[in-house]
């Protein structure tokens, strides 16, 4: 799907030759340290940023080359859960979820309302239908945003850190929701996450990014056993500071120089 992607912000190269293939009906997890470009990769996948080099193909179609109705049609087949939810602040949760349905279907308002309630129930947010995004917590916002991303039953769902900011129980329920969606609808899901427990539950295949390139791209089990120090320390949760820090102040001061 993603071929030889190079991503730059100005002169800074963030991703340098990333290849990523997602099969239908699999949950693909993107791993990597903070700031390594995971969100950037997702933004390229959903067409928000055009690639500096390389190309992106979604469901067999070149998203970035499409325009007008063809592009919209393709976009209705994908869903995206943003890192901070990105719900529209001026609309209630229910209206947010209804938005894609109103824009891209000719269903009657009554039917749309039923669908909205189904999606909200799926993420256990029914009680928040009439609240504004500013009136609910960060974790609730994320769940509501998942309901919105699911509004059109996409074939492909992208999630940027879905479980960050959720309590362990809700996070677990969210994982199960994703698994159910995969199993019942054959939906493919691309997830960026740091939660080890969550990775263990949901990941079919994992890609590990570092310094703009994939360090490993394999089944979860095999990436887990990978012997690259950065990957093993990630799974062993070795604090990065202990590993990477420079000399201690004691060493510097007693050795007489930096």
């Amino acid at each position, binding site marked *: 799907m993603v071929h030889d992607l190079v991503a730059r912000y100005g002169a800074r190269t963030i991703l340098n030759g990333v290849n990523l293939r997602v099969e239908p009906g699999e949950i693909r997890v993107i791993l990597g340290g903070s700031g390594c470009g995971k969100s950037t990769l997702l*933004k390229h996948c*959903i*067409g*928000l940023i055009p690639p500096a080099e390389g190309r992106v193909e979604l469901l067999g179609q070149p998203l970035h080359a499409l325009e007008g109705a063809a*592009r*919209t*049609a393709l*976009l*209705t087949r*994908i869903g*995206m859960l*943003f*890192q*901070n939810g*990105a*719900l*529209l*602040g*001026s609309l209630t949760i229910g209206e947010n979820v209804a*938005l*894609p349905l109103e*824009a*891209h279907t000719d269903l009657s308002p009554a039917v749309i309302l039923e669908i909205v309630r189904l999606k909200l129930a799926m993420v256990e947010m029914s009680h928040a239908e009439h609240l504004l995004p500013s009136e609910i917590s960060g974790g609730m916002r994320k769940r509501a945003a998942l309901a*919105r991303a699911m509004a059109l039953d996409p074939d492909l769902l992208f999630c940027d850190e879905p479980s960050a900011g959720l309590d362990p129980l809700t996070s677990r329920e969210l994982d199960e929701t994703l698994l159910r969606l995969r199993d019942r609808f054959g939906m493919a899901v691309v997830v960026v996450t740091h939660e080890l427990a969550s990775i263990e539950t949901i990941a079919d295949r994992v890609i590990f990014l570092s310094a703009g390139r994939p360090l490993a791209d394999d089944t979860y089990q095999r990436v887990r056993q990978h012997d690259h120090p950065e990957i093993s320390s990630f799974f062993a949760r070795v604090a990065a*500071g202990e590993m990477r*820090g*420079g*000399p*201690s*102040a*004691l060493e*510097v*001061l*007693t*050795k*007489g*120089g*930096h």
Partner: protein
Amino acid sequence: MSAPSPVFTAALDGGRLCLGGRLERATARALSHALERHAPSPGGALIVDLKGVDYMDSAAIGALLDAQRRAAARGSVWRVEGVSDTARRALSLFRLGPEQAAPPPPTPLMEAVGEGAYAARTALGDFLQLAADTTFALADPRKLRLGAFIEQCVYMGSQALPIVGLIAALLGLTLAFQSAYQLRQFGADIYVANLTGIAMVREMGPLMTAILVAGRSGSSIAAEIATMQVSEEIDALKVMGLDPIQFLALPRLAAIILVVPLLTLMADLLGVFGGYLVGVLYLDLTSGVYISKTIEALAPGDLLSSMFKSLIFGWGIGLIGLHFGFQARGGAGEVGRTTTASVVASIFYLVIAGCFFSVLFYVVL
């Protein structure tokens, strides 16, 4: 009573500086001074002894590292020997990060000018693109989201009525008084009606309304869109296959184009009414005379051109607000800056456009 204030001691003993007591935030400055006073001469050496230290925090470590760095720059030896247990614990807790390259020096003037010009050209290009997109979309009224349009009309129009009306009336009143003083000297009181009418309808009404709308609605357009931009809401719209121009820009732009001329019409009338009050109550003109003089002074074209002018004003204010909003990047602080910048730009635009209209009408009429 509490213990005496924290102290540290520094004593020079041969080439050895013995530090003792509490080396902490409160004493770090004094520590720096002591270290500077006893700094080794170029090529010389200083041994720092920390055996007597009872307490040490990161501020003191910073002072020590700084002194060592300075000494190294002068080519002298500067070293710690002998460390108390407390000091050892503190010193081994903190690690030095890798040396970072210094941030790039500020861009030289000529390059900065070039970059600025380039950025301005890009921004102008984006602005024209936005103007073209919105104008094109406005031509197809089916694309307008009616609910959002009405909501914006209510906010920009109805809710602005009291303030615009009040200011217009007071302005008319002031104009009438000012001209009355002058005209009275010639016994030409009666022309207060002409003067107030023409000034209000041709200049003050449209300009004052537009400035109020720029401060009220132009700024809120910029702030709303900028907030949505930095919180990724606009990205979310795009991914849902919704066009932000159609979804966000059109209702606002259509509303402002409709509402500003209507507000201006009301401001014109209330401004004239303000003058009328002065004329009737203060100058003892009869109400019939005042009204007929006003009507005589104003050509029907004046009212029309007043509204046309305000339509162009409103269109510009709306576009500028949208443009600045969509350009916002970065965090929450950006929203405030964007909003202010858009209001300044709007008012600048109003003055320029006002000038242009004055010249145009002068030449044409």
